[in-house]
C-alpha cells in the first residue's frame, strides 16, 4: 500500500539543534490532503515551511513571552518543533496552502490536476 503523505524520520537524525516532534494528523479530503500539526507557542513569525525533493519540512520556533518569576513545576519542553513529511508525487507542491491558528498549523495539499479522478462523458 502506498501512503500518500508519509512521515520521514530519517532526516531528523544528526541535527545539531534539538527539536521535538510535534503531533499531527493527516486527513484525506476529496481532491487532496489536510495536514494538521500542533505547535503550541508558535505563531506566524516563527513558522518555516519548505518543500525540497518531495519532502515537506515544518519548523516552528516559539515566541515565548518573557515570563518572569521562578519555575516551580514544568511539563512543557523548551525545544523548538520540527517535522518532515514525504510527499507523494501526486501532490501539487506549488499549490500547498498553510495557515496557523492557536498553535495548530493546517496545511492543504491538493492533488495535481492530472491525478484527479475525471468523469468522461460518453457522447
Amino acid at each position, binding site marked *: 500500500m502506498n501512503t500518500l503523505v508519509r512521515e520521514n524520520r530519517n532526516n531528523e537524525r544528526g541535527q545539531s539543534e534539538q527539536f521535538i516532534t510535534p*503531533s499531527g494528523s493527516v486527513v484525506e479530503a476529496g481532491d487532496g490532503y489536510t495536514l*494538521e500539526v500542533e505547535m503550541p507557542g508558535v505563531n506566524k513569525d516563527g513558522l518555516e515551511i519548505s518543500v525540497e525533493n518531495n519532502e515537506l519540512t515544518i519548523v516552528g520556533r516559539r515566541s515565548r513571552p518573557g515570563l518572569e518569576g521562578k519555575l516551580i513545576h*514544568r511539563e512543557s*519542553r523548551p525545544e523548538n518543533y520540527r517535522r518532515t513529511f514525504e510527499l507523494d508525487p501526486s501532490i501539487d507542491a506549488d499549490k500547498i496552502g498553510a495557515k496557523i491558528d*492557536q498553535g495548530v498549523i493546517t496545511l492543504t495539499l491538493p492533488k495535481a490536476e492530472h491525478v484527479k479522478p475525471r468523469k468522461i462523458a460518453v457522447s
Partner: protein
Amino acid sequence: MSLIRYQSPEVMAWPPLDRWSSLRDDLNSLFELPFWSSFARQGQLFGGWSPALDLYQDKDNVVAVVELPGMKKEDIDISLRDGTLTISGERKSQTSNGEKAERTERYIGRFRRSVTLPTRVDADKISASYRDGILTVTLPKAEEAKPKQIEVK
C-alpha cells in the same frame, strides 16, 4: 566439560531486516516523547488528553501556563477551589464525514488538569489569556501570602 554456552534456536531467529528498521523507528519515537510528559501524560496512552502544564511564581503572582493547541476560547474552563486550580475543556473534532483520517495523533475530546497552588491567591483578581495555543492564567497572590520586609526599629 565444554563451556560453550548453548544458544537456543529462538534467539537465532532474527526478524527480517526491514522489520528491525521499523522496530527501531518505533523505539526512537518512544524516546522522542518528552521525559516529563511521559509521566504527566500517561493518561494519553490510555485514551485521555493531559496537556502540559507549567507553573511559575514571582513575588506578586502565580502563573500557570498550559499548552492547549487548537482550542476555542469558550471551550476552556478555569476554576479555583480550596487552593486548587483546575483547567478543563473539550476539543471538538473538525473532521466531517466525507473525510478519511490517514493517521491521527491529535487528541479530540475532554481534558482536565488540576494543580495545587503553592500559596493563597486572590480569587477575584485571576486573569487568563489564550494566545498561540497557550493558555496563561495569572493568579495574584493574596496579601498575606506575599513576602514582607520587616523593618527592625
